[in-house]
């Protein structure tokens, strides 16, 4: 029973990890840049949901919390489109020399800026966002917290929608085409610039909605995104940069390793202390033995 409870917790956390890392993976795949402001996008989503939820609750709108969730996701999407237009598109279109270094600096600066903007704006305090479903679910001896299970179910649905979008719709295929080969996609009439904006918007909004779902479970504060962003980096490298399938599987592997690592280590008094180390150990091993990640493609050099 204990192992089953641990497994359920790992699956719940894994689903949430997958949701937040998919955005990072998508942005990397299409824009070929590592979004160092991913954790902060998550934080923005967390705060948006917090404020929208309390606003909708006090104005008794139909379904206040799901509405707050969708609105915050949409708002972060628009935020992403604007950011891409302002800071990234010019670098791409003008073929800026040292594009890679430029985008690292831009996203890094953006992350620091957002975090330090949130500090005076919202205060440094831990805030509790309302969960869509509270209470506990009991199945025999198994107890699962309601906020977690509802967040995991919603995250699962969003991931399913995303996969449908990427593999079954014209726009989604366009995104994947640009990720595979931007020049060929461009020749075939796909607007690469538009796809890049789209990918950045969707990628950031996935982080935002992950923040909205994590807020009720792990509290909202200006630094909330940092530990999750580190985990997302580990997951994306583990699964293979830009691979959707790899990211999802990587997320579950990390959640399992963290969860079971912190109870199965022979010295139980220290097991929890190394929780973050398990993920980083996994990252080092991946980089040593399979640098392209589990499902990543080996770089082809002419």
């Amino acid at each position, binding site marked *: 029973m204990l192992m089953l409870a641990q497994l359920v917790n790992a699956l719940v956390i894994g689903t949430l990890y997958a949701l937040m890392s998919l955005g990072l993976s998508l942005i990397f795949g299409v824009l070929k840049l590592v979004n160092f402001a991913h954790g902060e996008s998550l934080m923005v989503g967390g705060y948006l949901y917090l404020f929208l939820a309390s606003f909708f609750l006090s104005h008794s709108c139909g379904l206040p919390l799901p509405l707050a969730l969708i609105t915050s996701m949409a708002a972060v999407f628009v935020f992403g489109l604007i950011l891409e237009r302002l800071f990234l598109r010019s670098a791409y279109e003008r073929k800026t020399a040292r594009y890679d270094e430029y985008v690292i600096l831009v996203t890094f600066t953006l992350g620091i800026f957002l975090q330090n903007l949130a500090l005076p704006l919202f205060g440094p305090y831990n805030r509790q966002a309302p969960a869509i479903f509270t209470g506990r679910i009991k199945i025999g001896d198994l107890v699962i917290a309601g906020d977690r299970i509802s967040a995991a179910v919603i995250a699962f649905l969003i991931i399913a929608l995303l996969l449908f979008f990427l593999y079954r719709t014209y726009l989604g295929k366009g995104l994947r085409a640009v990720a595979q080969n931007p020049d060929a996609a461009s020749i075939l009439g796909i607007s690469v610039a538009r796809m890049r904006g789209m990918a950045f918007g969707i990628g950031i909004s996935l982080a935002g909605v992950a923040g909205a779902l994590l807020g009720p479970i792990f*509290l909202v504060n200006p630094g909330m995104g940092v530990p999750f962003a580190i985990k997302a980096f580990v997951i994306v490298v583990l699964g293979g940069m830009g691979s959707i399938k790899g990211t999802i599987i990587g997320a579950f592997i990390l959640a399992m390793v963290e969860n079971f690592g912190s*109870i199965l280590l022979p010295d139980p008094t220290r097991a929890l202390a190394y929780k973050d180390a398990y993920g980083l150990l996994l990252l080092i091993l991946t980089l040593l033995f399979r640098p392209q990640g589990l499902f990543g493609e080996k770089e082809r050099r002419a």
Partner: protein
Amino acid sequence: MGFKSLAMILGVFMLFVVMPGAHAEDVVKIGIVAPLSAPGGVETGQALVDGAKIAAEELNQSGGLLGKKVELVIGDTSGVPEKGTAVMERMVTHDKVVAVGGEAHSSVTMAEMEVAHRYNIPLVISEAWADEITAKGYPEVFRLTVCNSLIYSKAAKWIKDSGFKHVAVIGENSDWGMGVIKVFKDNLMAAGVKVTSFSAERTTTDFTPQLLQLKSASPPVDFLVDGFTGAGELLMIKQAYELGLAPTKNCALLGAGMDTLYPGFWDTVGEAGVYVLSNPAGLPGIPKTETSEKFTQLFKDKFQREPDAVAMEGYDTVMVIAEAIKLSGSTASKELIDAMENKLSWLGTRGTITFSKEKNPPWAYHLWMDVPVFIIQYTEFKQDPSKAAILWPEEYATVESYIQPPK
């Protein structure tokens, strides 16, 4: 680089160096270090600064110190040791403070006291509990709050006397958290109580794996000690409650960090907070002193809430430094340290503060030995700590024993 630009840089540099010197003549600057952003215990830091501000206002209204105005220099350490060192360096070398007070994280204090020791600047610690701070024997360092050994050896005795059989301690891997684990282990295991302990990174957000493990422990865990500060402390309480572990009929929960004392506690943990135990180093009005009544009124007027242990410590910290300046008639470090060590006996918000010169046990050095400590228990949702049931010490207890939750 040409001569002109070099001269200009030098000129700008000189401006910065000379300016504060000219200003320092007409004010007495006291540094306050506190965690005011994550990952530090933010509400603790804010309470400390709030208390200190009231003290500074009061001093200035009655003419300041040595005929000069008192100015607080407030530094945010984020609960990060390296930041503590940097803030201290800046306060001492750039702001030219005469003494520094505050801090609520032991690991940060350990870094800050090295700077204080190097520059021979008095450092009065408000709310950091690790034994090592005073045990190190630095003459510059004073502490007007409890230390781990002083409180948890007593709390451990209370736990044993209350009949708890299996105590689990989850502590953060900081100087304070590891100290909590050690003192509970040392005192309880000697008394025949089983102790299970875990340490974890301070940024840990999910305690579910360990809590699940504790839930199926045998013999069953009947007392859980939450040895975290900041978000971790609140999340552990929330998660333990959601999993049906504690606080329940079968298991009590002690939130050892100070985040159990602020309004944010109820907003974040909700109904999980009812029946939680806490251990504040002071409660407003107990014992009732002239200073505590005056301070409680001033604090309520300014901040529209009841003061808490840390706010009282913040006030006492600034006042103790001020008292030392008055006693010695000087702001020289040597005189201030001498005054605090040998002459100081000041009636504060929590009793009469004097600093011990005893070095056995080592942590007693420059510690206020009579600092009041309480074990309180919340009995209602959204209860203010000052209204909670007092379980210990006996002379102030409002209930006979630990209140078992009905479910």
